């Protein structure tokens, strides 16, 4: 039962953890690769051996500054680290190195497009660097828990939004926009299934028109766009139900159960840890020189919003097509590479959003693993444009390209699919058709105009679909008029 209605207003803030795609960890030289055997990628620093010290991986500074610029935010200099104290076996030091007072990125915003096409600006409070924890493995050991510290120390940037998101669908739009940006900036693979991007949602509801915010809950670790939408909707309905039946919302952390599509309490904030933050004495505050920030500004890639506008202008695509093609950087790059060869932006856009994405989805492949390259697709489309083949035959060729990984020209040549454009050849085919259908000829000449289509069909059939349709039309018309 959907309780989201005019009486209630929803207030959402998102905390998004993004794993930065560095080669080594935030404070150690150990590798960050996903999927290695447990504890094979944990060095003395990651294991929190006595006496070890953290050394900042400077690659992350560049990545964080890029994100800050993309989010129209302030870059804090100096930016400093703090210890967040809590005991858990997957946190080997007993504290996490994070940022508190001067996060590297602060006070930005992001414009998202709503379903009705309007634009809404969402404030970004801050984005700070911190290290990831290891993993506890509860299933594999009878009566014991295993600890895998491979992930411990992997760099994360936590992006905290203002509580300015008003619905689950806005939350998804915001999340998708962040996802698109981090992929564009090449600072994370954004893979939610592998946990490279994780989302916690702070949700509260209040009576419409009320000034004060309602009590919020935090729903943790929702690991797909779809689940974010479902979890928030569930939580909003739950809170409205509680309030409408006279109850009160408990401030707590909840966990989303995707199988049951419910959220349940994890731990109550009232008994929550006091994290006892204090400045990390092992790391000096980091000064980010203006020159450093300026050099990153110069290296900034075109961002999704800019690319969308450029596509609309330069390629004369519709807003919708531009938006769809630019949302994913790989897709946008594929499009631009294909257009370079095809010289037809509209036809290329249609092919990519149609046949190309359909094949990718069918095989469940990322663009990087596509069986047809952008150059090959561009060539295929140029063969339609230069009348080598018809659009209909192109579809068959494309399927063969996908299956065989052969180029379009090779397939066209091998299968003899080249369009017949020679006037004489078409004429002789037409003569043959007219000769073999004297009855239809007579009916046509006595005024039965619609038989023209019959003749076209016969000629195309005779050419096995390869005759140029326009030429067939023109020559047929002049012959039949005689």
């Amino acid at each position, binding site marked *: 039962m959907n309780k989201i209605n005019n009486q209630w207003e929803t207030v959402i803030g998102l905390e998004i953890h993004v794993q930065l795609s560095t080669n080594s960890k935030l404070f150690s030289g150990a590798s960050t690769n996903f999927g290695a055997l447990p504890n094979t990628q944990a060095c*003395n620093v990651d*294991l*929190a*051996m*006595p*006496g*070890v*010290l*953290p*050394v*900042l991986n400077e690659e992350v500074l560049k990545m964080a500054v890029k994100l800050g610029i993309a989010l129209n935010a302030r870059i804090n200099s100096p930016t400093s680290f703090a*210890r967040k*104290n809590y*005991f858990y*076996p997957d946190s*080997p*030091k*007993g*504290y996490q190195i994070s940022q508190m007072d001067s996060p590297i990125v602060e006070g930005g915003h992001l414009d998202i497009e709503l379903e009705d096409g309007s634009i809404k600006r969402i404030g970004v409070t801050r984005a700070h660097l911190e290290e990831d924890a290891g993993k506890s493995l509860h299933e594999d050991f009878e009566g014991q*828990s295993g*600890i895998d510290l491979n992930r411990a120390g992997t760099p994360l940037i936590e992006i905290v939004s203002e509580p300015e998101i008003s619905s689950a669908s806005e939350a998804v739009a915001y999340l998708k926009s962040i996802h698109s940006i981090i992929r564009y900036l090449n600072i994370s693979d954004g893979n939610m299934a592998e946990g490279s991007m994780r989302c916690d949602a702070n949700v509260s509801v209040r009576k419409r028109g009320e000034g004060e915010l309602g009590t919020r809950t935090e729903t943790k670790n929702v690991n797909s766009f779809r689940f974010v939408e479902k979890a928030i909707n569930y939580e909003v309905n739950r809170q409205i139900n509680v309030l409408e039946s006279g109850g009160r919302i408990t401030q707590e952390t909840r966990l989303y159960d995707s199988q049951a599509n419910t959220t349940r309490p994890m731990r109550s904030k009232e008994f929550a840890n*006091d994290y*006892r*933050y*204090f400045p990390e*004495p*092992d*790391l*000096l505050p980091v000064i980010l020189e203006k020159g450093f920030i300026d050099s990153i500004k110069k290296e900034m890639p075109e961002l999704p919003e800019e690319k969308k506008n450029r596509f609309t202008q330069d390629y004369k695509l519709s807003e919708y097509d531009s938006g769809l093609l630019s949302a994913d950087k790989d897709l946008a790059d594929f499009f631009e590479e294909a257009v370079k060869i095809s010289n037809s932006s509209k036809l290329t856009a249609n092919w990519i959003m149609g046949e190309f994405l359909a094949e990718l989805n069918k095989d469940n492949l990322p663009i990087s693993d596509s069986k047809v390259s952008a150059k090959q697709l561009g060539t295929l489309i140029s063969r339609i444009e230069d009348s080598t083949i018809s659009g209909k035959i192109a579809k068959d060729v494309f399927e063969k390209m996908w299956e065989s990984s052969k180029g379009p020209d090779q397939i066209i040549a091998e299968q003899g699919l080249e369009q017949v454009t020679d006037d004489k050849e078409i004429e002789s085919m037409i003569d043959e058709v007219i000769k073999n259908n004297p009855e239809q000829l007579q009916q046509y000449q006595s005024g039965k105009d619609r038989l023209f289509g019959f003749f076209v069909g016969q000629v195309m059939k005779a050419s096995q679909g390869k005759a140029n349709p326009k030429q067939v039309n023109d020559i047929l018309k002049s012959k039949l008029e005689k």
Partner: protein
Amino acid sequence: MNLDELTLKEQLNGLKDSSFSSVELTEVYLKRINQLDASINSYITVTEDSALEQAKESDKRYKRNEPLLLDGIPIAHKDIFCTEDVLTTCGSKMLSNFKAPYSSTVVSKFKNDGIVMLGKTNMDEFAMGSSNETSYFGPVKNPWNLEYVPGGSSGGSAACVSARLASAATATDTGGSIRQPAALCGLTGIKPTYGRVSRYGMIAFASSLDQGGVLTRTAEDAALMMNTMSGHDHRDSTSLNVEVPDYSKAIEEDISGLRIGLPKEFFEQDMPDYIRNATEDAIKVYKDLGAEFQEISFPNIGLSLPVYYVLAPAECSANLSRYDGVRYGYRCENPKNLEDLYMRTRDEGFGPEVKRRILIGTYALSAGYYDAYYLKAQKCRRLVANDFTEAFKSVDVILSPTTPGTSFKTGEKTSDPIEMYLQDIFTIPANLAGLPGISFPCGQNNNLPIGLQLVGNSLQEGKLLMAAHKFQQVTDWHKEMPNL
């Protein structure tokens, strides 16, 4: 000639001109350790076999005429420095079974310069203490009088050098843990500028205050040790990337005209006459050497002790969280669940002084108290540091007693932590300001040594060693040896 009575520098000369071998020298120390250390308890681990191996290798290098900087000199490392494959306990039951998987930068540097490691020295548990009575491995005795404490936390390092069970020893100083034992055992001890010596592999007590240094018989020896120990380390982000001078050359520089400051607040402190008199005598020596004196003021010095006892426990409360029984070290028997594992491991693995400081530090960082304690202490720390900045505008070094008294009897102050904490009243300010300090013997009372402290400006270790060296050239206090 007893080889153990030679200073490190004399031993190095003897090795160079083949008067004796490193094996002979090492055997002398190992024999003395076997004979004497049962009553002193200065070593937690003696690495006899590897010491002899290292000595043999060293002798080969001398034979090949390719000796390293400190080749063949037998020293001991405080058991706070991680040493690969050797027990590294930090004086605690918590690490009583811990063999480090790597060596600290300090240990590696000495190894690379040819040192022979005799073993690892006893210390207050996690460097928390001023009498070496909090060690899980039992108290260390002062070689000058076995009923007395050697000071702490580097009590084992001080006692072993003083008893001539090692030529020199590494040590660490968070609030006075090198200088106070140096004073109480009649040694020269230097705590360098914060960041001069790498902290990598040095088990952390209070990260913003901890600094490694040395305990030796003379300033000349300290200079030799500092040449090896100092320098930038990319594995320690707080280590200073500044060139290291040759301290053996620095000590030969001229002392005349050295401006020495006398902080009036220090001398207003309650202290016994014998300390006051010994300090006055030392001032006379320096006047004769051509130094100039000036009274200076440290209006905020009274904040030092309270500031220290907020900040050091706060940092230690986090630094010691890693000892949880999960990955290494002590683990309680048959834990019922995770909480039981944490609670009993830490209750059984830590001693009372460590627990006291973890509790104080946790409290000072707690929500609602952070501003009143931790943040205020940080601001006061800045005030203390500013006093030094002001003072160094007009003086080169600051002179004071190292401790408010000579050594005290084992057990005498253990029931009163505040009384114990006052041991470090003259030494703590230098740690708060990150400045170098040195202590060396300047007298005796009842056959117990008295120490003199000099504090210098940032990176002025050379000046401190020079001033101590000049003093030792005209006095004999540093030549006194305990009767064993």
